C-alpha cells in the first residue's frame, strides 16, 4: 500500500479524516 503522505492530496485527505475522527472523539469525551 502506498503511503498517503507521499501525495499532497493524500496528506489533505488524511488531515480531513483525522479531523472527523477527533471531532467524534471530542464529542464523546464531552459527554455526547
Amino acid at each position: 500500500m502506498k503511503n498517503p503522505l507521499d501525495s499532497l492530496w493524500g496528506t489533505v485527505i488524511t488531515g480531513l479524516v483525522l479531523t472527523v475522527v477527533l471531532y467524534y472523539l471530542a464529542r464523546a469525551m464531552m459527554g455526547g
Partner: protein
Amino acid sequence: MEFLQYGIGRWVHIMAGVMWVGLLYYFNFVQVDALKAAAADNPPSGGGITKHVAPRALFFFRYAALVTVLMGLWILGGKADDALLFKERAYVPIGIGAWLGLIMFFNVWALIWPNQKKILGIVTATDEEKAKARRVAFLASRINTALSMPMLFFMVASGGLFRRAVFGA
C-alpha cells in the same frame, strides 16, 4: 446551520488566512532578501535555495513554532493542566488542539530541523545520511501538514459561541 457557519466556515476562513498570510510573510521575511543575497554572490554560487532561501525560511519557521507554543501555554496559564489532561469538559477541544500543536512543535525541532541541517550541509553528513534525512524531514513535514487541519479546527472551535455551535457544549 450554526455548525456550518461557526464551525466549518470559521475553520476554512482561518486555514485560508494562514496560507495567505504565511506566504505573505514568506515572501517578505525570507524570499526578497534571500534572492537579493543570492544575486550578490560573486562568483554566482547557483545555490540560491540551499544557501540563502532555505536557511532563512527554516529560521523563521522554527522560531515561529517556538513563539506560538510559548504564547499558547501562557494564554492557557493556570488552565493548562485542565486542557492538556482533559480535566474539564469545556477544555477538551482546546486540549486536543494544544496536543496536536505540541506534536507539531516536536516534529519541527526534533525531526525537521536536525534533518534539514544535514540536507543543507549545515552539519556534515554522508550521502546515505542525507538521503535518509530527506525522507524523515519530508514525512515529518507532511505529518505536520495533515495535523495542522484538525489542530486549527479545534483551536478555532474551542471558545464561547463557537464551541457551543460546534460541540453543543
